[in-house]
């Protein structure tokens, strides 16, 4: 069955199935998930088709983009449309994580699995409250206990963490050794630089008439 399907399945059809799946899914789809649905094309072929699809979206100046997030693929809206969408969803995109939250996340992302005292040693302050918030927001999870004296709880980042920051994997974060404070400025890794430029090109949405 799968043999004959493989022969009959045209590339255009594969592409449509993948596009439909990405359209319907509300979370990033893994390559393995797509592969098991298609039952024919191998991983390389699927990657190839997705790359083609992503390029089409960009070329047609579509409102949508295909992005690799948290190790999967997801359809997202073009960032330049954000100002309008923010008006539609008033709460989305306005809440940001606090400085202490971001610092704590940064430490956990690099040092995981990390215990609370290890995080506190770096930040120099107690992190009870921040940790609790991050766990509630599902950005950090308890990974278990370290098998040492006192069996302390160890923490790590979640899949949601990658999604929240639009990262494909933790590898995308710069290496800590890259930071050198004898030089004045810290260069961002290349892929981050590009996105920052794109961000600067945003246009503003039409202003709403303000009530006096």
């Amino acid at each position, binding site marked *: 069955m799968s043999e004959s399907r493989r022969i009959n399945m045209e590339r255009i059809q594969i592409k449509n199935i993948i596009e439909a799946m990405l359209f319907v899914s509300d979370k990033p789809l893994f390559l393995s998930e797509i592969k098991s649905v298609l039952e024919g094309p191998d991983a390389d072929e699927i990657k190839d088709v997705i790359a083609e699809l992503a390029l089409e979206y960009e070329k047609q100046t579509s409102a949508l983009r295909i992005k690799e997030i948290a190790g999967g693929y997801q359809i*997202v809206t073009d960032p330049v449309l954000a100002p309008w969408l923010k008006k539609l969803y008033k709460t989305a995109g306005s809440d*940001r994580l606090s400085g202490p939250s971001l610092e704590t996340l940064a430490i956990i992302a690099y040092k995981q699995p990390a215990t609370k005292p290890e995080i506190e040693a770096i930040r120099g302050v107690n992190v009870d409250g921040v940790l609790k918030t991050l766990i509630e927001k599902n950005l950090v999870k308890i990974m278990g206990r370290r098998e040492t004296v006192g069996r302390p709880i160890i923490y790590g980042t979640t899949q949601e963490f990658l999604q929240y920051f639009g990262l494909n994997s933790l590898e995308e974060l710069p290496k800590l050794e890259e930071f050198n404070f004898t030089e004045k400025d810290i260069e961002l890794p290349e892929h981050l630089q590009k996105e920052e430029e794109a961000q600067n090109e945003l246009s503003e949405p039409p202003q709403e008439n303000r009530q006096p």
Partner: protein
Amino acid sequence: MSYKVKLEVFEGPLDLLLYLIKKNEIDIYDIPIATITEQYLEYLELMRMLDLNIAGEFLVIAATLIHIKSKMLLPPDEKELLPEEEEDPREELVRRLVEYKKFKEVAGILQDLEGQRKKMFTRDIPFETAPGEVFFEASLFDLITAFTRVLKDVPKEIFQEIIKDEFTVEQKVHDLLHRLVLTPAISLFELFKNAKNKTEIIATFLAVLELIRLKEVIVMQKQNFSDIEIVRNEKHRLNIE
């Protein structure tokens, strides 16, 4: 009158040290301990004066700084004249500061990524965050710096007077809220400039901190050491309605 202000977004002692290093344009690997210790203690004194809850961690670093300072004043021990082993007393602190600074940089990068990610919408509107987390544009230390600057400019009062509570924080909170209805933004320096004496400045400053805590206002600063603007927290207002 005791009036404790609790700030949820409270940076630690290392953050304060980094702030002082940046402010003085100092090389992190060659910190003039005497100057930094003095400034660090000045900030602690200010925080105490404002009745801010000084976390124990701040005192630990203060003790560390004083310890390093005294060590550097002492002549090197003649008995242990092994040059390789002679350690810079600042070394351990610098190591901690550098490590902390790295993570602060990463936190900055994460913040950029967060901003970019929030511009891309997906089918499920990503991630419901608890509403109302205040985003600090100007840090507590920026506020305290502005506060010190103003205090220095106030002429010394010559007579010893007994003053009744002419200005209360409560009244200042009302004043500020009222003014913010009339104007969208108020300059912090302007506010201080119009104050009659130290008591009024302190009352005003505590009122600003209180309004931040209540999420009624947001304070913003365009660049380092520039004026600080106080604006209404519109988001909070919407949530209430």
